């Protein structure tokens, strides 16, 4: 379905080869966290969690629980306070967030105690025997209410639930608004939801009293900035917290970032019992207390001239981070800060960013991370502008897009958009995705009295984050105090063994994306061997691998960062092997080619040597290496893009390395009887730069789209006014199934990134940013309404049309 054929840039690059991961996963031989053997003396943990959204903790009586057979220990906040430190976060505030609640609970589900027992069944039995007295406090779950003076304050030392309030000005927005022909605004509320991987958290922690350190297995996904957060909480040097991940991870989508407090909790438990302690989160715990995307209330206003040209944005964002500001928050609010102008070339922006707390689960990484919230506001606004100016919504967007010749383009808030041709991508989407056909269908449906609408959305998908973007929340003076933060260091090591086969260690922690396949393609391409001959270490071990704070699988960093750095490492290795081979073949290095498992002269292919012979030779005969050549057994590449600078004095920040582009449009029909939304036709045009393996990329698009469907139509964490959680099972938190997710039509363009080694850009998050708002725009069009709130469950759709309800005993009744 590609509108442009895939660039085959090699034997393996650009091809949809089958995945090297699949044979094991399809036969039940995957090695997920809970599949791995543990030491025979391992104990099992279960959490007692708060039933109150906000309460002072009184007595925790654990004596009955401790008396039970098979129970070894009960860990409480007292232990946490005695042996660990509160977690640090992206804002310095006097918030004491421990791995187990201390003195007060602030959301339903917050850990209150941990039972450590012989097995999980007994541990759960013991939970029922712990007696806790709570003094309930009033709770606030609505972020708009939480910042009023009447709201209960969650952290008294802070004095308010408002943790940060910053206003940024780029260009001259006041003048732009004064001069504008039109001002169009919209207020939107983005709900809290979560990507709910099917595998929940798993942690096995072992304390080593001799070293005073911890060895932890967890299905953590990064970023490794959090390794520092964990080590600081445990009060150990980073090299005393060895963190390993299982070879397979059952999905994450950002969420498994939030396992980190539990790593500390299990480390603490293992220290207290001096035995390994294992915890497998169950689904009720996961839904209740793992993580949520931030909720956000945004008021956005545009200054627009009569031609439909947008001159300025005025944005007010209020972010709901839940009960604690948990690292890396408030990153959700700042990830997209540099490209607040979206795909558009407006030059003036005012933005006010407020970060607030509520008595709900703390927020954290979720696919799209800040993007769904931002683009919901921008792209709903674009539709409102189109309606107001009676313009075609696509024409309006095209008129405002950054132009192809402007790339690389510096956005007013600092993002450096690397490449793209937005107009052309949209033109191709309109043609190949049959936009005109949708218009016909809408006309026909409306003529028949059916409710049919069309929507679209344009999204710039940032990837490979600048680790310094979070510091934009600090002012220039504070930043100067803590020192500049920037860059995104990636480390890949390629190793040759004595028999000349190739092994690779990468610093991404895949959770199903097929990283091993893609890396195998990159390495095989460069070294002229077969992808299946390359071994990629699948589990991660902080005690062995090279890593930095940027390590992990988030912000779509894999294709630009990890694949790119693997390419650099393999290329250097190849150059060094060439120096060995040229001696052997008596050919100049620039005349050498690597292919089909051989190294040969391009002038005379018969003059060749097996790759593995040269690759293994440094092990066998290091004494006969050419003058000045180190043994060729290993190459480690470290790479960070120079474009990722720290925020400047004017708060401009380039938050990401590469910026892809997505243009979606869809046709939906609203059933007049059931109020279900049927997605009739969905098109997503994607430009992610060069594609290493198109099938893997399409898989990411389909998955992000499915998450977008969930966010648009079903998923919301609901609390009642007292903070009780109403979405606590998979029968209440509705994840779309095969009957609810249609097949999108996927189209591509390819604008290679000039800033990444392979020209690749990240992908995998974009449709979770574009799909929710695209569907919302279509439903707004179908129903002719201005305000749309997600998720569009049928009862809420019905409410949008509720003015025609007949009253009881209407005329004509008997």
């Amino acid at each position, binding site marked *: 379905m590609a509108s442009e054929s895939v660039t085959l840039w090699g034997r393996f690059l650009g091809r949809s080869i089958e995945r090297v991961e699949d044979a094991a996963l399809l036969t039940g031989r995957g090695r997920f966290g809970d599949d791995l053997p543990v030491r025979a003396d391992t104990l099992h943990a279960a959490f007692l969690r708060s039933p109150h959204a906000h309460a002072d903790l009184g007595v925790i009586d654990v004596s009955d629980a401790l008396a039970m057979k098979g129970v070894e220990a009960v860990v409480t906040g007292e232990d946490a306070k005695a042996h660990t430190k509160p977690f640090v976060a992206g804002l310095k505030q006097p918030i004491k967030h421990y791995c187990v609640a201390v003195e007060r609970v602030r959301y339903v589900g917050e850990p209150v105690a941990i039972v450590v027992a012989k097995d999980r069944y007994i541990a759960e039995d013991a939970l029922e025997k712990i007696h806790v007295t709570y003094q309930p406090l009033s709770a606030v779950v609505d972020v708009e209410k939480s910042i009023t003076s009447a709201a209960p304050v969650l952290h008294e030392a802070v004095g308010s639930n408002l943790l940060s309030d910053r206003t940024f000005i780029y260009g001259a927005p006041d003048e732009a608004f004064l001069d504008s022909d039109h001002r169009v605004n919209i207020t939107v509320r983005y709900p809290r939801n979560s990507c709910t991987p099917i595998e929940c958290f798993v942690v096995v922690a072992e304390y080593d009293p001799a070293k005073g350190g911890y060895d932890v297995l967890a299905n953590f996904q990064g970023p490794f900035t959090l390794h520092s957060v964990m080590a600081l909480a445990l009060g150990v040097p980073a090299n005393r917290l060895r963190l390993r991940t299982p070879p397979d991870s059952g999905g994450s989508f950002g969420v498994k970032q939030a396992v980190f407090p539990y790593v500390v909790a299990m480390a603490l438990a293992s220290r207290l019992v001096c035995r390994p302690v294992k915890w497998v989160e169950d689904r009720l715990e996961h839904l209740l207390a793992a993580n949520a995307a931030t909720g956000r209330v945004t008021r956005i206003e545009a200054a627009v001239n009569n031609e439909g040209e947008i001159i300025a944005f005025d944005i007010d964002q209020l972010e709901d981070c839940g009960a604690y500001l948990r690292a890396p928050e408030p990153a959700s609010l700042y990830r997209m800060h540099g490209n607040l102008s979206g795909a558009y070339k407006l030059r003036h922006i005012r933005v006010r960013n407020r970060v607030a707390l509520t008595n709900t689960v703390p927020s954290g990484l979720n696919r799209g991370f800040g993007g769904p919230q931002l683009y919901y506001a921008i792209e709903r606004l674009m539709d409102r502008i189109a309606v107001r100016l009676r313009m075609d919504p696509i024409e309006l967007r095209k008129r405002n897009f950054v132009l192809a010749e402007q790339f690389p383009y510096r956005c007013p808030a600092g993002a450096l958009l690397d490449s793209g041709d937005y107009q052309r991508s949209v033109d191709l989407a309109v043609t190949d995705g049959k936009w005109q056909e949708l218009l016909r269908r809408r006309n026909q449906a409306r003529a028949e009295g059916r409710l049919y609408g069309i929507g679209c959305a344009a999204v710039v998908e940032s990837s490979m984050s600048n680790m310094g973007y979070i510091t934009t929340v600090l002012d220039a003076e504070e930043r100067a105090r803590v020192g500049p933060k920037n860059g995104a260091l990636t480390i890949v090591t390629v190793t040759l063994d004595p028999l000349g086969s190739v092994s690779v260690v990468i610093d991404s922690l895949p959770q199903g994306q097929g990283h091993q396949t893609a890396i195998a393609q990159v390495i095989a391409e460069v070294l002229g061997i077969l992808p299946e001959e390359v071994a990629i270490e699948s589990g991660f071990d902080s005690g062995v691998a090279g890593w930095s704070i940027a390590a992990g699988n988030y912000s779509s960093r894999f294709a630009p960062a990890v694949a790119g750095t693997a390419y650099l490492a393999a290329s250097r290795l190849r150059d060094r092997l060439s120096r060995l081979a040229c001696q052997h073949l008596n050919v100049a290095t620039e005349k050498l080619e690597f292919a089909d498992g051989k190294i040969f002269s391009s002038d005379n292919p018969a003059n060749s040597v097996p790759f593995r012979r040269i690759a293994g030779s440094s092990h066998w005969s290091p004494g006969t290496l050419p003058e000045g050549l180190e043994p060729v057994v290993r190459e480690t590449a470290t790479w960070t893009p120079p474009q990722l600078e720290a925020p400047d004095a004017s708060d401009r920040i380039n938050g990401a390395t590469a910026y892809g582009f997505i243009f979606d449009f869809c046709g939906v029909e609203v059933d007049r009887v059931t109020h279900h939304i049927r997605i009739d036709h969905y098109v997503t045009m994607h430009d992610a730069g060069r594609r290493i393996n198109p099938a893997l990329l399409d898989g990411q698009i389909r998955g992000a789209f499915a998450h977008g469907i969930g966010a648009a139509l079903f998923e919301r964490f609901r609390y009642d006014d007292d903070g009780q959680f109403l979405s606590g099972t998979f029968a209440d938190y509705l994840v779309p199934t095969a009957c609810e997710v249609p097949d999108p039509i996927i189209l591509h363009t390819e604008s290679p990134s000039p800033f990444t080694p392979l020209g690749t850009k990240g992908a995998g998050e974009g449709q979770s940013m574009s799909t929710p708002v695209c569907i919302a725009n279509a439903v707004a069009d179908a129903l002719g309404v201005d305000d749309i709130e997600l998720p569009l469950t049928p009862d809420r759709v019905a409410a949008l049309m509720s003015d025609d309800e007949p009253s009881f*005993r209407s005329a004509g009744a008997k």
Partner: protein
Amino acid sequence: MKPPVFDYAFVEHLDEVVELLAADGGEARLLAGGQSLIAMLNMRLIQPTLVVDISRLPDHDFITLKEGVVEIGCTVTQSDLQLWPGLAESLPLLKRALPWVGHRQTRNKGTVCGSIAHADPSAELPLCLAALNGEAVLYSSRGERVLAAHELQVGTLETACEPDEMIRALRFPRAVPGVGYGFGEVAYRHGDFAIVAIAVLASTEGVRIAVGGVSEKPEICEWPLMEDRFLNDALNDLAWKLGTTEDQHATAYYRRSLIRKLGRRVVGEALACVG
């Protein structure tokens, strides 16, 4: 999410079941398909002292048709019933409703009687039993008694079954010529519990309409045949009568709207089938 401790009895005779129930003073629970029971155990919503496994009770996997009644034994799964060759002819309403019951993977184990015994207000099978005015055969050490559907289900997850009684079988009246059957449901996702489910029996005399998902148990109305606008009014009044509860799944307005509109659609379907 692990079950609490309980004794487990694997029984091979009906009398063993009722003996255990009589002896255990209401603390025993029957396990047939377990699709609700074990989920409730995993969440520790119930803590029985004894679980009596009747899933392989001999001689209770029968589906028999005699004297105008289809009798279904207590080990018959929902999938078994779906695969019963006589289903379309004898129980057309169930033929339509069964695909809405959970998912194939739960129907493979969940029993027909178990769903009736569980008495979820939004479940399809209790709705069908009520719509068809079927009966449950209850058995205890005191003997057997038969309750009509409306006598059996008394509230949310509550039946008139005494603690020492079990549902040994169900009796569904077989389809009658001249009656059309309709079933319609709205759930948010395929296989979810109903927001509103409606079963209709229609004949040239009138309609019998059963509504699930809106109150503690299926609600039944019988109306003579009437003109469209009167039918709309009747459905509207029914909607206002029943559609008052708002919960985390749906607003009251939405439920009323479904009773009106889905009700209209299902009545129409049933009428179209009147032979």
